[in-house]
């Protein structure tokens, strides 16, 4: 049995959940697929449009999601479902919970996969390593089960297959599972296209010199392209931009059709989050900046001058 | 037998120096060179991580690092900026006479303070009319009771005006020639000592170079290193060792010239391809590489000899002459690789040539190095 596990922020199934369905169906090859939805019952009902058996976990102790509590809940659902393969999205929560689940189930862990095939006990997956510089093929060679985290925005979203049923599960959570207290939470907001799903991304780095300059150049360009806005770690650390925009080793991984890097020098840690973009453009005043090694098109110049000129040219081309 | 591996802590020292230079020296080198300004923040930072005055003995609170350790550090600093490195190197040069000839009390008095803050030493041998002819010193030392009175002018003294003290070489009896010389530590706050920063150097412009005027400067006789008559000997034994860091700095410049040239050769295109595909350019790069590997090995060999108390004067002279001559040639070839751009100060290579030219001149000109080598060959 293949069990996929997802949360439902805001009561909705995230895109990653429907990507997991695709992977689950692939691996199940016609066999049984189940889903555990951590969130309101309404989200579980949404999942029932895709998967025949849905376990709904709406207990208050699971909101906000804490690693140990979610781990305990997943372990119980896996046992109830008789699952020997557990799938989660390789987002922050997934990467935090999946290893704990793997230890509990004495499972092998396949992390952040971009391809996976095989059957329980003999899976083969493809993933990146060495700061996304290498593509590796990994096989499971042991363990009583397998836990797989799936890289977001790689697999296609699944088509609906309505008719699933929902079972409510009340997880048994002991004091250990709930010993971590959650304090203040802050979520980044923004009216823009979601970064991981944007077809075009405009990224900015420290080359702008100030938060104002960044906003003045990047935002109009992103508006003109209906693009997502990305930032380097340095810019987020400097307080210019919110964490939700961060792309790189410790941020999001994006692979849009077009990535425009403005004032970004190209440290490997940032590149590893966007070097799979289809077309990369960079503007930087330093001709030696490492980013120019991975561009399709580059301009050596001041982002505060070339940037606005590019925005104007884009608007002109689009006839707006 | 022969081993060419660096030890684990030498590798760490190398990594520390490399990272330090990358973060603190390389970003400011061009500006200090342009403006001839003293990089005080770099010197402070170097003190904070322990890269300043590393030869001060452990007995007085220093690290007591070896010549080989210094050569490793020197190459990394030379890579970033030979001018800034000369500040550190010249301080070690000022310390060396005390390592060779000071009493424990003198070492405590003069060297202990050098590790307590970003403080420097200087070595004052050259004079306006006297460079290579070190035996013909005109600066006078007069023994007056329990004091020594120093009168004269020194020039080309690195760190002279920013050091806590200088080791001054003077003559108390010209008739005795080099046997009539003395080495004296002169603290910078002694009345009668004035310094003038020299302007208009071709290169190594971040390194502050001074004329020092001694107008009846009095120091206690306890500031004398060794005995009366030892001055010249101390100076020569010092330079036999300190030419090794000069060589190491030149090796750093060599490596930088090679790295900049090969990077450019991969990027710049002519006749439809990267210029690195043309043999003319390839040969230049290969020659730089040949020089780099051999100069480094000779420098490390000389350092090893010195650290193991073996005769090292000839090996050090070979290292200094060869490394600085090859580095100068590599730097000017690097300009050729860059073509027109190499001639502009926006690109880093013209500075390499201007800087390393001095390595061929100071601490014993390369002509004097050849005199030393020939003497060993012919004896």
């Amino acid at each position, binding site marked *: 049995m293949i069990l996929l596990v997802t949360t439902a922020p805001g009561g909705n199934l995230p895109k990653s959940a429907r990507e997991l369905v695709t992977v689950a169906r692939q691996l199940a090859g016609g066999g049984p697929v189940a889903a555990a939805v951590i969130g309101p019952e309404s989200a579980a009902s949404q999942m029932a449009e895709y998967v025949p058996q849905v376990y709904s976990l709406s207990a208050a102790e699971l909101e906000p999601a804490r690693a140990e509590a979610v781990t305990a809940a997943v372990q119980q659902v896996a046992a109830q479902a008789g699952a020997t393969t557990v799938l989660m999205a390789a987002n922050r929560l997934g*990467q935090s919970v999946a290893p704990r689940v793997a230890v509990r189930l004495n499972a092998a862990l396949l992390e952040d996969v971009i391809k996976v095939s095989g059957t329980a006990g003999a899976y083969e997956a493809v993933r990146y390593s060495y700061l996304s510089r290498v593509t590796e093929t990994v096989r499971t060679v042991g363990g009583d089960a397998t836990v797989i985290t799936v890289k977001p925005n790689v697999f296609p979203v699944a088509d609906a297959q309505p008719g699933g049923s929902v079972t409510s599960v009340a997880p048994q959570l002991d004091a250990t599972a709930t010993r971590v207290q959650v304090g203040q939470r802050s979520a980044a907001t923004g009216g823009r296209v979601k970064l991981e799903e944007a077809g075009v991304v405009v990224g900015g780095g420290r080359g702008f010199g100030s938060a104002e300059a960044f906003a003045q150049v990047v935002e109009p360009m992103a508006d003109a392209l209906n693009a997502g806005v990305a930032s380097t770690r340095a810019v987020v650390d400097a307080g210019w931009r919110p964490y939700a925009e961060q792309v790189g080793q410790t941020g999001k991984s994006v692979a849009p059709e077009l990535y425009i890097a403005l004032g970004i020098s190209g440290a490997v840690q940032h590149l590893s989050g966007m070097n799979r973009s289809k077309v990369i453009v960079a503007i930087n005043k330093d001709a030696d900046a490492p980013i120019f090694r991975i561009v399709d098109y580059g301009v050596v110049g001041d982002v505060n001058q070339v940037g606005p000129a590019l925005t104007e040219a884009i608007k002109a081309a689009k006839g707006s | 037998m022969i081993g060419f591996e660096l030890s684990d802590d030498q590798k760490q020292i190398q990594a520390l120096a490399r990272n330090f230079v990358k973060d603190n020296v390389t970003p400011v080198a061009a500006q200090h060179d342009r403006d001839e300004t003293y990089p005080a923040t770099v010197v402070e930072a170097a003190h904070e991580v322990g890269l300043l005055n590393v030869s001060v003995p452990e007995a007085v609170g220093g690290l007591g690092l070896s010549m080989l350790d210094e050569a490793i550090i020197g190459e990394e600093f030379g890579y970033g900026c030979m001018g800034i490195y000369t500040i550190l190197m010249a301080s070690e040069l000022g310390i060396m006479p005390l390592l060779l000839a000071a009493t424990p009390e003198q070492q405590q008095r003069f060297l202990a303070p050098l590790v307590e803050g970003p403080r420097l030493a200087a070595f004052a041998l050259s004079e306006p009319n006297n460079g290579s002819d070190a035996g013909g010193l005109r600066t006078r030392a007069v023994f007056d009771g329990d004091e020594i009175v120093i009168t004269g002018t020194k020039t080309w003294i690195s760190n002279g005006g920013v050091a806590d003290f200088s080791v001054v070489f003077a003559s108390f009896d010209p008739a005795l020639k080099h046997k009539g010389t003395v080495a004296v530590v002169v603290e910078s706050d002694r009345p009668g000592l004035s310094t003038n920063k020299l302007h208009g150097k071709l290169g190594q412009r971040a390194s502050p170079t001074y004329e020092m005027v001694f107008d009846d400067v009095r120091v206690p006789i306890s500031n004398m290193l060794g005995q009366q008559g030892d001055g010249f000997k101390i100076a020569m034994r010092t330079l036999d060792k300190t030419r090794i860091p000069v060589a190491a700095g030149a090796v750093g410049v060599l490596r930088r010239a090679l790295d900049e040239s090969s990077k450019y050769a991969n990027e710049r295109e002519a006749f439809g391809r990267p210029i690195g595909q043309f043999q003319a350019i390839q040969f230049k790069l290969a020659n730089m590489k040949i020089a780099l590997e051999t100069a480094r090995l000779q420098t490390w060999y000389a350092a090893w000899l010195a650290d193991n108390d073996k005769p090292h004067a000839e090996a050090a002279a070979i290292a200094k002459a060869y490394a600085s001559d090859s580095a100068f040639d590599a730097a000017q070839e690097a300009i050729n690789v860059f073509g027109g751009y190499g001639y502009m100060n926006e690109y880093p290579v013209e500075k390499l040539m201007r800087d390393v030219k001095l390595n061929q001149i100071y601490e014993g000109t390369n002509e004097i190095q050849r005199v030393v080598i020939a003497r060993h060959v012919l004896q």
Partner: protein
Amino acid sequence: MKLITVLKQVPDAEARIRAGSGGVDLDGVTFVIDGMDEYGVEEAIRLREAGNDVEIVALALGPARYEEAIRTALALGADRAIHVETDTDLDPISQARVLAQVVQHEGADMVLVGGKQADWDSAALGPALAEVLGWPHSDWTTKLELAGANVTVEHDTDDGHESLTMPLPAVITTQQGLNEPRYPTLPNIMKAKRKELAKRSLDEFGAGSGLTQIVDQQIQTRERLGKMVEGDPATAAAELVRLLQNEAKVL
């Protein structure tokens, strides 16, 4: 208080990785202590500098060349080190099971480890270690404060960040933003030579041969055009748009 900092030695981020016959070729590559782990070592030292009575033990599981990274941790300020030396490339879950035994034997109060390892690109070691130990964990931690028998942290989540309070002992995974790692000063590099570096063998821990195996590695090649567009801002911009529309067809 006993702090254990787990570290790895990985290829330098700037190093050119080559692949040869199905595997990564690390010959001649410069290795460094994993940058992510450095934040852990630095945090441990800061806890000591804040006045806490702290013993810092550096712990590493890997081949002989890891010694350099371990010596760096000692030079940064760890008091002693334990190196479980092995050439076997174990998966993170299996590694966690080995390391947990050392942590338990040491009776540590906190384990610090990098949030993501730069060779496997894995974020599993910290959480897996916490689970084997039966401890809570905080991953992608950006702030840490001791509060009696608890530790309060700020860490990154999918939407932003949140603050957590958990009882010690705990596993904390570290990242950029937690602190600014210092240079190992030269005096500390020399002092580190005299610090204890205990060697253990993997056999002592019943690790088995691992749960996953890498069967192939290829360099990610992506042919990029590398076209530089010249001219003043307006000219370059116009040309760029033309290329993106007509050549790349992404506009």
